[in-house]
């Protein structure tokens, strides 16, 4: 069984991996990254400008910095409890995820 220290280390790893992946996608194609990450252009620009030490700093917290995009348990139920083929159920999740609003923090 994993202990708390291991969880915390994994959280930091995941945070850093997320930031590296996000920055890589933004640098390769900003518009597509905005869709893939479901973030606003402002946020994408800020992530793009982070230096490596800044990313490390942001990742080194004991909380996950990215959260689950499915918020409604009923939706997870719909997406996991059906007999659809892989490609149609992929399409279903993508349609529902793309429908989510990007929250702009003012």
């Amino acid at each position, binding site marked *: 069984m994993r202990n708390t220290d291991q969880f915390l280390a994994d959280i930091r790893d995941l945070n850093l991996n997320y930031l590296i992946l996000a920055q890589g996608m933004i640098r390769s194609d900003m518009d597509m990254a905005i*869709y*893939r990450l479901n973030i606003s252009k402002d946020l994408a620009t800020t992530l793009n400008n982070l230096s490596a030490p800044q990313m490390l700093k942001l990742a080194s917290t004991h909380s996950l910095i990215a959260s689950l995009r499915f918020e409604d348990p009923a939706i997870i139920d719909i997406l996991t409890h059906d007999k659809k083929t892989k490609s149609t159920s*992929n*399409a*279903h999740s*993508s*349609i529902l995820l793309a429908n989510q609003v990007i929250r702009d923090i003012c």
Partner: protein
Amino acid sequence: MARKQQSILDELKDIQLASELIKYGARLQLLELEVGLSRDRLIKLYREVRDESPTKGMLPFSIDWFLTWQPNIHSTLFYVIYQKLRTHTELTGIEANIKAYKLYLEHMPIDPGEEPVLSLTRSWILLRFINRHMLGVTDCQQCGGEFIVLPYAKLKFVCGLCHPPSRAGKKVPTKKMKTIELILD
């Protein structure tokens, strides 16, 4: 009417756009409307990119196609991606169309030799239908997703993914059909 004299840089941009559109299978009619190059140059470019002459004939101009089960899922997926790009990036027009189409293809990968369910030309026609209010979107009562429907669709709509028709997805793939036909011959 004589075409306005184009700058070389503009022409270069048009050629890049046109060859990308051609690569993704755009029909000549689409190219003529979206790219500022003459028909002759477009045909020449088409031959260079695809090594074949452009397909002749009318565009697949049918609203019903977008409402049948599998095409509806594919066109809905394309459209929600397109909307996201339009709302949150500065992409417009054909550029938003092609980028959304690329993301759609990523979600629905195809086996080599197979054609995607939704072609680039069809995705372009879909946007025109929606712009002219010949098609619209409505929320599924069950999963809450937005789906392509007729503008006067019933209020209590349930999408084809929450309630697939009984035969949905059971179609024999064309490749298999051909093999069966060969065996029968």
